[in-house]
């Protein structure tokens, strides 16, 4: 949409105002943002916030429409006959915006592990085998896999809590002398690790955070700034007066994250952070982790394990999938399911299995499996999600839940034999 011409956007905004002034605010605001030169017009548009507009009385709709139309006409006039100085300034601004359009972080490698193995003999034989793991600044790497697949073992090795049986781990950004042997006492001080089971904090939350920063050499005024920044960034201000045991699971995790991030580490390792969070807390935490990881000035490499597959594949750049200790997939999220032979869909509806089989008549549908809570429909690659939805619609089957899982980590659980 933002790439459309002024004329197209203008038509869209005008139509939107006619249809529903309540819903037109965003179109008008974006029109002003992208095409007006005069900052006053942008400021006027920005104050048309949706709350004001949403709560307007029906009797006021005509006035509201009129105000928006007037603003749009002013934007048109400003766009077509701009003040020359403003036009020059804006042109320069857009030149700078264009210049920086694809400005990425320098994605330097923070951790480089090769041919890692860990063998356990007791209580039963288990071999963890990870041929390659490369963590880069600004990237989020998700680790998924069934219970007991070796995720926590891998994390323990990476943070120096457990020695590997064989293999190497290098931390190129940590300024270690290249003696070949990892200096774990230094490495441990440079990795921020949030374990699955959070430790209990004693004493004041503020003191703990400030002390953590001080122990990493952040003292005096810098300590104040780091404390202010992280508590504000993670929304902890209102909870500083609580005791640890009075905090909810979500806030305990946020405080632990603050402790991990207050000294601006380059590598953050999170073991099952979503386990005890409600849906909203999960989304807000993942959003924060993504923003923090992709900071332009202080990017962080994040390694995160989770059983919340949809969430993890939404936020991660790379996925490492472990199954019975073996890395069966390690690649970019976009490569998930690239080599698949079938498409797979999950469906929940009020129709019984036999009726569904009867109604979904298409030669490209290979299998319909009843998994109890939902159906899993396997089809040929030429059969897409919209095709299936069309057949459902034609047969008046109303899906309660529908998801194309052809390129989801979920497939790795079911296939378990994807080449690494």
């Amino acid at each position, binding site marked *: 949409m933002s790439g459309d011409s002024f004329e197209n956007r203008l038509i869209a905004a005008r139509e939107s105002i006619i249809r529903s002034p309540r819903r037109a605010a965003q179109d008008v605001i974006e029109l002003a943002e992208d095409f007006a030169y005069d900052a006053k017009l942008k400021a006027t*548009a920005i*104050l048309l916030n949706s709350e004001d507009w949403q709560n307007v009385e029906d009797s006021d709709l005509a006035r509201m429409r009129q105000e928006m139309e007037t603003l749009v006409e002013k934007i048109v006039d400003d766009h077509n006959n701009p003040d020359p100085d403003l036009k020059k300034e804006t042109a320069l601004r857009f030149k700078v915006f264009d210049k*920086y359009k694809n400005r990425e972080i320098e994605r330097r490698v923070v951790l480089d592990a090769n041919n890692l193995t860990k063998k356990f003999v007791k209580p039963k034989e288990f071999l963890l085998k990870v041929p390659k793991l490369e963590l880069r600044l600004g990237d989020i790497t998700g680790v998924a896999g069934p219970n007991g697949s070796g995720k926590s073992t891998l994390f323990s090795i990476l943070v120096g809590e457990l020695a590997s049986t064989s293999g190497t781990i290098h931390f190129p950004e940590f300024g270690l002398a290249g003696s070949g042997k990892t200096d774990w006492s230094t490495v441990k001080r440079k990795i921020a690790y949030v374990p699955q089971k959070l430790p209990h904090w004693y004493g004041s939350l503020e003191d703990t955070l400030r002390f953590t920063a001080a122990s990493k050499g952040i003292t005096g005024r810098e300590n104040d700034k780091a404390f202010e*920044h992280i508590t*504000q960034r993670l929304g902890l201000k209102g909870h500083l007066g609580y005791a640890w045991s009075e905090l909810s699971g979500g806030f305990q995790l946020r405080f632990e994250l603050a402790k991990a991030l207050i000294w601006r580490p380059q590598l953050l390792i999170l073991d099952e952070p979503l386990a005890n969070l409600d849906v909203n807390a999960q989304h807000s935490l993942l959003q924060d982790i993504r923003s923090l990881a992709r900071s332009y000035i202080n990017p962080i490499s994040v390694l995160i394990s989770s059983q919340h597959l949809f969430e993890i594949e*939404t936020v991660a750049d790379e996925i490492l999938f472990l199954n019975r200790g073996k890395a069966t997939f390690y690649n970019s999220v976009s490569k998930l399911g690239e080599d698949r032979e079938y498409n797979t869909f999950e469906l929940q509806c009020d129709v019984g299995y036999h009726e569904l089989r009867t109604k979904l008549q298409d030669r490209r549908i290979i299998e319909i499996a009843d998994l109890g809570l939902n159906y899993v429909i396997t089809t040929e690659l030429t059969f897409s999600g919209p095709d299936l939805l069309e057949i459902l619609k034609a047969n008046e089957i109303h899906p309660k839940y529908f998801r194309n899982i052809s390129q989801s980590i979920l497939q790795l659980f079911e296939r378990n034999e994807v080449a690494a």
Partner: protein
Amino acid sequence: MRNEAPGDVGARYRKIRVGLATARYSAAFLGLMDFAGDFGTSEQSPKGLKECSSYHELSLQYDDGRIQRADYKRELNELVTRATKLMDEIVGSQVNGQGDELDDASDQIEKAKQELENL
């Protein structure tokens, strides 16, 4: 899932402004804080944090019933205005830092074009 490039000042600027304009204040003020931290000068960066703090403090006051809706709306509009001003200042600093360089580049392109035409 990748969003805009972290160094894409324009896209991040626009995202925050649209967030402010569509009342997604919490995300927009956090975005402003990160934006100021990433692109602001040493003076602008703490201002981003300050505006973000002010917004959250104001929200708490409103949620607790310490201020009335009319006052909340008035102060919020002031905050939004200050936030947009700060973003413009930050973008202004980026533009000023790059303006000469871009003008030089444009001049060089023009010069090269002239030279080609003369050939």
